[in-house]
């Protein structure tokens, strides 16, 4: 019965592992059906997570980005908190519109930042799509097979782009290209699905390993 002694939550470390295992099993129970154990741990989870977020809010945001600059003499930072608190007027019928000023600033900023994202993230991909599609003398070392792949690359890219045209009726060759685009889209989605599977299985493997190795000490 040595195993039982090791297994039972008789030390702080074992207790921690037991807690983790109970949490895991309780949440897994939703696979069978919704039940009181799942419900309890779901509520605990949300409560703990919501409580936890307050720490970084106070310690990292309010202290680091508000209090520290203030102590360094940047007095205008004093306005950040009351300005943010204008959001709280949202519950007031009379003053509710004031919160829209804050929301407006947030919207404006995210819209303004989008320009840089657009330019640095997406525009270079236009350049990256310039591919030689026939092996000519202009590109040294370009194999016929590479050229075929490049050609397919361009065809797929353009056909999927065609599928995403909305503002006119798709007829004739455009329609056929769009259908091809839709099929290519399905290939891409299938590939993502197949490629993702591994990550998800890895997570489950990690969890099963925790249950079997850390908790039950069987492997």
């Amino acid at each position, binding site marked *: 019965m040595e195993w039982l002694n090791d297994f039972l939550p008789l030390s702080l470390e074992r207790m921690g592992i037991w807690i983790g295992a109970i949490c895991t099993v309780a949440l897994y129970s939703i696979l069978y059906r919704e039940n009181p154990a799942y419900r309890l741990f779901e509520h605990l989870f949300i409560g703990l997570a919501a409580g936890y977020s307050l720490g970084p809010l106070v310690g990292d945001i309010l202290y680091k980005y508000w209090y520290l600059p203030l102590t360094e003499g940047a007095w205008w930072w004093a306005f950040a908190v009351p300005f943010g608190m204008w959001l709280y007027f949202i519950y007031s019928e009379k003053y509710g519109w004031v919160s829209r000023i804050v929301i407006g600033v947030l919207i404006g900023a995210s819209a303004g930042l989008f320009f840089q994202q657009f330019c640095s993230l997406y525009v*270079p*991909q236009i350049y990256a799509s310039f591919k030689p599609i026939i092996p000519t003398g202009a590109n040294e070392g370009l194999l016929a097979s590479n050229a075929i792949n490049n050609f397919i690359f361009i065809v797929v890219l353009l056909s999927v782009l065609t599928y995403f045209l909305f503002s006119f009726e798709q007829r004739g060759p455009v329609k056929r290209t769009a259908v091809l685009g839709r099929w290519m889209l399905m290939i891409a989605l299938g590939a993502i699905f197949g490629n993702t599977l*591994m990550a998800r299985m890895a*997570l489950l493997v990690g969890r099963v*390993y925790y249950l*079997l190795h850390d908790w039950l000490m069987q492997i």
Partner: protein
Amino acid sequence: MQQQNIWTKLIRVDRRILYLILFLNIAVFLMFPFKMPATITSPARGLYDAVDSLQPNDLVMISSNWSASTMAENQPQLEAIIKHLIRKGARFTLVSNEAQSRDLSKRIAVGVTQSSDNAEYHTYGQKWAHLGFVTDLIAAIRGMGSNLSEAVKQDVEGTPIDQLPVLQGAKSLKDYKMVIDVTPSGTLPYWISYRPPNLIVGYAPTSVMAAEGFTYLDSKQLVGMITGLKGAHEYEQLMGETGLGHKFINAISFSHVLILLFIGLGNLAMIMARRAQGEA
């Protein structure tokens, strides 16, 4: 009334039976491991070569943004990369965009550096440091790009940035050679968009994020990538090490087979049930 033959039953199989089969499948393969070699993919080699060509004391930023839920994938990756950096004698700093990841990645870095033969890494702050948790990654990258000590202020242990031995002579991200993003979420575009231009970018995503990585590999905005647990497994093989990656790969392989099997079975059932219906 058509009798419930085996095929119609199979089509409408209770999903809980599927769940149980999957669970058992993984448990069995974890309990009885055997060895299977990995194919080295070109993105993995790209990252390995990039790290391998670092000079001693080159500075590398590791952006570690994962939490316990993707531990199975990101931990083997981070461990492999840190081991490699130590082997090259490079200096490195970590930064986290996830509060939880700060503690986790520090714990792992401490573990790996402590168990290495290179004594230089045993003291925190000497060859490596953790710069802590940043809430807004865009602001942090832009800030660190112009002035490290202003943007981060202090490291995870509260030491002011300019007093850290590891960062002597480094004023901003510009003085780094490379950034490696170990991540389960969409943080890569931010590094690509807002980093100083001289920094090369390596990527260690979970398998699911890898699909997005190919676009950047193709456009050379990424120097290399290791994909999830499989990538960590490849990286371990390139380094000639054996780590956690080896243990998990079989259970995963055969869960894939199981799913393929059931997709086949489901289709067979559908065809047979249709045929039976046609006959009736």
